[in-house]
């Protein structure tokens, strides 16, 4: 009896181990069969269009791995997927395996690791500035020049200025951009009207607004200093230093940067930030603004689409702080991402063509029009929109009236240095640390 029992245990263990192995293997097999299934489905769909079918039959089936930043809460996630879908319909022999995600710090770290170990995708939409320095160090992208030698039509719709703006720090063009962004001060205009306040176009009006809102139990500025103080860092430093001082990376803490960051403490002491600005996260700060519990929020062009009240929200340019060197109408913005083709895909004869087609599908005028949709700047020629919301128009006016456009600080300094800067803002705002001390450390990290 016991022997039987033991035998049963043994058999169970063996079966388990086998099933485990099988499961691992099966996963792989199943996936490929799934993709095959998909291609077959597509093929069937195409059956009516005889021409396309014969055209497509000439090619071997290709599976293209792609990664973009249009994932998660990105407003363009749907557009991206739509273009992919259409692409797979047009080219039934190509299957796209897409792993797009929101571009946060963790994601960047993972992508860098993927590139380091040879796990990179075939096509990736990624940063073009200093944010990409880790990935660029792996030297795994094909240059546009090289692609154009074989495919002269590559990036034909993209404006030359946009291509130039998306150049990598080493001066080589590798990425094809779609849209650029701006950052600006979003205001709940109805709240300003309610308390007879003027929009904060200069610093006095800003102070007046903060004071009045504070008295009436409305949070003047929705921001999470612990989570995303980035926009405020950029604008305060830019307002204090002016575009030129802002965009040169100095060796020791410049007075102007210090002056800009000092404003955090001034604002905090005025009670301009939420009581729990040290603990809430950025999404929640956004909710405060959207629910009209807060009057102002500094954010990027991508933020506009998610605001429910499109009629009473406006974007204004950030006021110059007292003694600041910037001209009124300064703006933070730029064009800092684009589609890259990796050498892995380029050196694979089947994938080369598919990858080029994929990038062209995403960067042609028609697609750029979709991505742009009135937010930020477009990298190709676009038609003006007929049905823009008042907020959309306000954003467009704001960005086209900008007197200067500066790229954010993280385009110029090492990621680790930039992260050190944003992580130190809470301490600066409480006075636990002097801005000069923080900037000094940041520059040290950057120089290392």
């Amino acid at each position, binding site marked *: 009896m016991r022997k039987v029992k033991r035998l049963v245990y043994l058999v169970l263990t063996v079966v388990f181990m086998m099933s485990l192995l099988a499961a691992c293997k099966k*996963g792989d097999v199943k996936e490929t069969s799934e993709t095959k299934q998909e291609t077959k489905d597509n093929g069937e769909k195409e059956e009516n269009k005889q021409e396309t079918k014969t055209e497509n039959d000439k090619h071997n089936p290709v599976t293209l791995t792609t990664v973009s930043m249009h994932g*998660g809460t990105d407003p363009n996630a749907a557009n991206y997927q739509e273009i992919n879908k259409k692409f797979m319909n047009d080219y039934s022999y190509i299957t796209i395996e897409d792993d797009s995600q929101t571009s946060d710090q963790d994601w960047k770290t993972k992508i860098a690791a993927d590139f380091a*170990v040879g*796990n990179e995708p075939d096509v990736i939409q990624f940063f073009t500035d200093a944010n990409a320095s880790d990935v660029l160090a792996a030297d795994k992208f094909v240059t546009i020049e090289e692609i154009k030698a074989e495919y002269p039509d590559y990036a034909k719709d993209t404006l030359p200025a946009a291509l130039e703006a998306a150049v990598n720090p080493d001066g080589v063009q590798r990425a094809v951009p779609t849209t650029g962004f701006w950052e600006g001060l979003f205001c709940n205009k109805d709240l300003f009207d309610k308390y007879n306040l003027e929009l904060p176009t200069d610093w006095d009006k800003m102070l007046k607004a903060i004071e009045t809102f504070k008295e009436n139990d409305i949070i003047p500025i929705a921001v999470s200093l612990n989570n995303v103080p980035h926009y405020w860092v950029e604008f305060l430093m830019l307002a204090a230093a002016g575009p030129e001082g802002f965009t040169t990376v100095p060796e020791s803490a410049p007075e102007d940067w210090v002056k800009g960051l000092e404003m955090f403490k001034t604002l905090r002491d005025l009670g301009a930030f939420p009581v729990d600005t040290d603990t809430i996260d950025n999404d929640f700060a956004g909710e405060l603004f959207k629910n009209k519990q807060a009057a102002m929020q500094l954010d990027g062009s991508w933020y506009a689409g998610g605001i429910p009240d499109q009629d009473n929200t406006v974007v204004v340019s950030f006021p110059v702080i007292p003694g600041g060197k910037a001209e009124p109408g300064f703006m933070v913005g730029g064009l800092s991402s684009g589609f890259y083709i990796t050498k892995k895909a380029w050196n694979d004869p089947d994938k080369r063509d598919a990858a080029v087609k994929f990038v062209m599908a995403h960067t042609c005028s028609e697609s750029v029009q979709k991505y742009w949709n009135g937010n930020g700047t477009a990298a190709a020629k676009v038609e003006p929109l007929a049905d823009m919301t008042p907020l959309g128009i306000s954003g467009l006016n704001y960005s086209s009236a900008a007197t200067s456009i500066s790229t954010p600080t993280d385009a110029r300094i090492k990621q680790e240095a930039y992260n050190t800067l944003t992580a130190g803002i809470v301490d600066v705002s409480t006075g636990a640390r002097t801005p000069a001390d923080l900037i000094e450390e940041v520059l040290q990290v950057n120089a290392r």
Partner: protein
Amino acid sequence: MSEVKKKKKKIKVSTILIYIILSLWGITTIFPFVWVINNSFKPSREVVNSSFSLPIEFTMQNYVKAFDNLNILEAYKNSFIISGSVTIAVMILASMIAFAMTRYKFRGREFIHSLIIASLMFPVFSTIIPVFKMMSQANLISNPLSVIIPQIAGNLSFASVIMMGYLRGLPIEMEEAAYMEGANIRQVFTRIIVPLCKPSLATVGIFCFLWSYNDLFTQLIMIRRRTKFPICALLNEISSKYGIDYGLMASSITIIIIPVLIVYICLQKNIIKGLTAGAVKG
């Protein structure tokens, strides 16, 4: 006779007190569970504004959204492959280690003991980067094994500590008697130790399963293909996809915890079985 009665009465008062104390703690632990399920039937805005009342506007939308977008069954399967194998492997290996560590006296035992204790301290973030490198060199990224193996190693020290504690409390006489009757070590282990350890094996099993199942961190780093995502990783993605949609998060959490509860209740019966077998008395 009267004395006995008195005693019974006294016990009853204290029993009621015990039940009150136990129930109070029970309320605190059951509350979040109810809260999560309750909120999973509300639209997101209602969760933020009145998360503690019953749904005013009862909606299944959150579940529809979750099931619509994702292949939840496939993700459950991935999760069970990973967590199931981690649990079983840890149970086998830990009982072996604990048996060797408590029953044998040998040189270096102290050293191995402190090795096991020290590895309890390793936070998973401190080993994940080199492990990721190893896995990618072995071309195992996105393979369930890339999560299974580090999780076995990570949970093993905890499981061994628990099993060692339990085994120490077991009298050695029975094993010696069995040996006298001619049983060899393997038989002693499989016929005496393992059955005796059932309750603590069940304990270890539950926790390993849970930790492996809820360990989003390792899953996110190792599994990169969406088709291979375990359930936690998949639902993490969906909740980040819709921003702070608390209603959707609540429904995701409900979807995540239901299988775990089932496993817990299954293994719990096992504990009781182990007990009624009268482990110690033999």
